[in-house]
């Protein structure tokens, strides 16, 4: 009996050894942290990968491989011809799309990463304003992994609440949601440094337009609200600028009327404190009411113009349609898409400045 059990176990170990996943020893593989896609001509695209090389002395160098092909697998095979060690996707941090590539559509390319179990759901997607291959090959950051650096740039902005949280999972969730359009961070180059240039807006998986950097904060506020955000706003009445910090705000959308003539009002209660004031700081506590009023009108104007411009392009990255779907019984995508650009969406701000000069 015992011998039978032991021989069974032995047989399992010996025969099933082939069933395991293949070994990928950490220092015998090339970890891709960044993939960039560019549109070349007709149906082909160029893929560029960045692979950090960790040197024994503790420094990091980025190595680049590039190949042109029709589909992802094709590019992958050509890349394999160039490398000493197998390229693996498991530590992929970010996928960059050249702006031309993004305009042709990114869903098929992303689908590979969505289905690959070794790729993190927190992997970032971003659009680069220009040619990604040139950017990856020419952009030199000393002693840092390029993919990680870009990811940190985006994550830092999400933490500072200048950009909503974003990753491949959220992108696809939005893509499959009725009444909401996906968006991605738009990166650009200025003075040899990469920076967050704005928001690239997608319709049906194809990039159609972009919002400038000046709209980033307002976009974030309308999309996901603030926990501890900040704003710099002019106060015309006092001819000064005010900076609000520690802002706590939650966008609330009120829906009235029926599905055929919806009345939509954004109500945002904004609670914050004055960080900086360019005018006369003396007696500021008496001006708080005035500042609050002025801030409200400036913010309302900005928000309304942002929403209007989105409406005119037929884009809904804020998910107003999704909220309407939750509210109205007979909501229908087609009808909604038709009436959406014509909707009158009001925005109301209720600013409450809680502190105006605490000395720390």
């Amino acid at each position: 009996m015992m011998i039978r059990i032991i021989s069974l176990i032995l047989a399992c170990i010996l025969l099933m050894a082939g069933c395991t996943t293949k070994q990928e020893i950490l220092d015998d593989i090339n970890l891709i942290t960044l993939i960039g896609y560019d549109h070349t001509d007709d149906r082909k695209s160029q893929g560029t990968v960045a692979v950090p090389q960790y040197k024994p002395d503790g420094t990091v160098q980025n190595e680049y491989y590039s190949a042109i092909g029709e589909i992802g697998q094709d590019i992958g095979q050509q890349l394999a011809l160039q490398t000493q060690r197998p390229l693996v996707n498991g530590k992929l941090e970010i996928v960059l799309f050249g702006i031309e590539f993004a305009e042709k559509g990114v869903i098929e390319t992303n689908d590979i990463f969505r289905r690959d179990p070794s790729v993190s759901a927190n992997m970032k997607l971003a659009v680069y304003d220009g040619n990604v291959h040139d950017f990856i090959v020419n952009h030199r950051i000393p002693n840092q992994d390029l993919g990680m650096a870009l990811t940190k740039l985006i994550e830092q902005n999400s933490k500072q609440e200048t950009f909503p949280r974003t990753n491949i999972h959220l992108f696809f969730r939005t893509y499959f949601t009725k009444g909401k359009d996906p968006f991605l961070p738009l990166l650009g180059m200025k003075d040899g440094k990469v920076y967050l240039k704005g928001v690239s807006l997608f319709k049906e998986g194809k990039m159609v337009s972009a919002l400038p950097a000046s709209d980033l904060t307002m976009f974030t506020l309308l999309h996901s609200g603030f926990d501890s955000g900040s704003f710099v706003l002019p106060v015309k009445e006092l001819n000064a600028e005010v900076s609000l910090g520690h802002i706590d705000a939650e966008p609330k959308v009120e829906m009235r009327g029926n599905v055929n003539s919806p009345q939509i009002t954004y109500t945002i209660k904004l609670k914050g404190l004055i960080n900086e004031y360019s005018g006369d700081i003396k007696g500021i506590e008496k001006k708080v009411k005035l500042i609050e009023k002025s801030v409200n009108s400036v913010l309302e104007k900005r928000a309304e113009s942002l929403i209007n411009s989105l409406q005119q392009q037929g884009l809904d990255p804020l998910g107003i349609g999704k909220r309407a779907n939750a509210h109205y019984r007979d909501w229908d995508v087609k009808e909604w898409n038709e009436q959406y650009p014509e909707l009158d969406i009001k925005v109301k701000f209720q600013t409450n400045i809680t502190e105006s000069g605490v000395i720390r």
Partner: protein
Amino acid sequence: MKKFFQKWMNSSQQTENKKNEPETLSDLIDMASSSKDFVRYKIKKETGTIYISYIKTLIDMDTLHRDILPYIQHEKQMNLEDLKGSIPIDNILLSEKVPEIKEKLLSGYIILQFDTDIDECLLIKALSASNREVAAPEIEFSVLGPKEAFVESLDKNLHLVRKRLPTMNLTVEEMRIGTTSKTLISVLYVKGTANEENINTVIQRIREIEFDQIMDSSFITQLIADNQNSPFPQLIDSERPDRVSAALSEGKIAILVEGSPHALIGPTTLIEFFSSFEDYFLNWHVATTFRVIRMFSVMFSVFATPIYVAVLTYHYELIPKDLLGILVTSRSNIPFPPILEAVILELAIELLREAGARLPTKVGQTIGIVGGIVIGTASVEAGLTSNVLLIIVALAALASFTTPVYKMGNTIRLIRFPFLLFAQLWGLLGIMVCFCFLLVHLLRVESLGRPYLEPLYPPRLQDLKDTIVRLPFSAQSLRPINLQTENTKRFNKQKAKQKRDIDE
């Protein structure tokens, strides 16, 4: 002395086997005479000749010279009865049974005879007590609390326990086990508290031991274990009389062995091996924290290296991105795969421990330093092992030493190796499979017929009060369910809660 005794016993055993049992006292004396340390002489007096025989390496000469010889020489005795009355020593035996005389001779008695032809003789106990003094515990050292540890003498050990439990219910049962060594074994329990079934189990199992020599209590642990093939010890061995006394009054059973400075306590559970007796000297928050740290360190000790091997071999995705650079850098020059690297380092640590344990204390310390610093850094600089793994292995070894019971520490170091093997074979899945094997084994192990994993499985919420957490004494009013004690209450909870600060 003990060794010599043993040798002597062995040789006498052999002669016994050849010549069979002695039939008369003179046969016995003839047989004993073949050994050089057997002494026999006669004292001639007016009333008759007295023959004195003894094994000189066993008896206390002071007793003979001071308490026996003067009374034989100066007084007049006509027969053995007279002699018995005149020697001022208690418990003098008058016997004519040859097997009994033989046994007494071999356990340090002096034989007095008048006539060499008849078997009747006097037996006077004069065993020399060459015992170690009671000293501070070395293995289960504690900063607080009593500094007494068991010694090699059973009587002294019993004294150490009994003075802590002055109750009539503390029962000591004695038996001699071992066909050659005839070691005296005492089973201690508190009557009316300890479960009858447990007591019977222990006594029956010890009685049924068929073995030639019992040199230490750890022989008993192995011989009466429920599962002798398990790497897990199924009885706690302790050198602290306070721990044994506490266990006895809790309803457990203790086994003391002549010549062994370790008592055995049972039935026990896995968790109990990770509780130090010092936990009860600290207040419950501190004690609980230390126990949690100890449990964590056991987990760390078992799983750290296997997880390192599994992650580096199969699951590079799991490595946090900030750690990636450090790991790749430290691995980049190593010619071995992670498993070889890990096995080499683990074996090196085991080597060091074994070398340190076998060498005398002072050399042992040097070995520790030489091994730890020189071999460790040298192997990293030579590029044979990565420094990250060196840290992990060293920490894991350190963590395994936090286990208060030495035998459990050994087990923990051992079970790491199958985990390593499985980690190399199937990665994290392999670790999971190996853990399943371990868990199933632990579920099936019993300690004196009581479940080993209790109170985790079978779940006994009430018994959790003194496991990973140690609740305050006020919450410990009941004895563990696991022991099935005859009297479940330790003290009256209501009475303990009353505050009598103010006189009414």
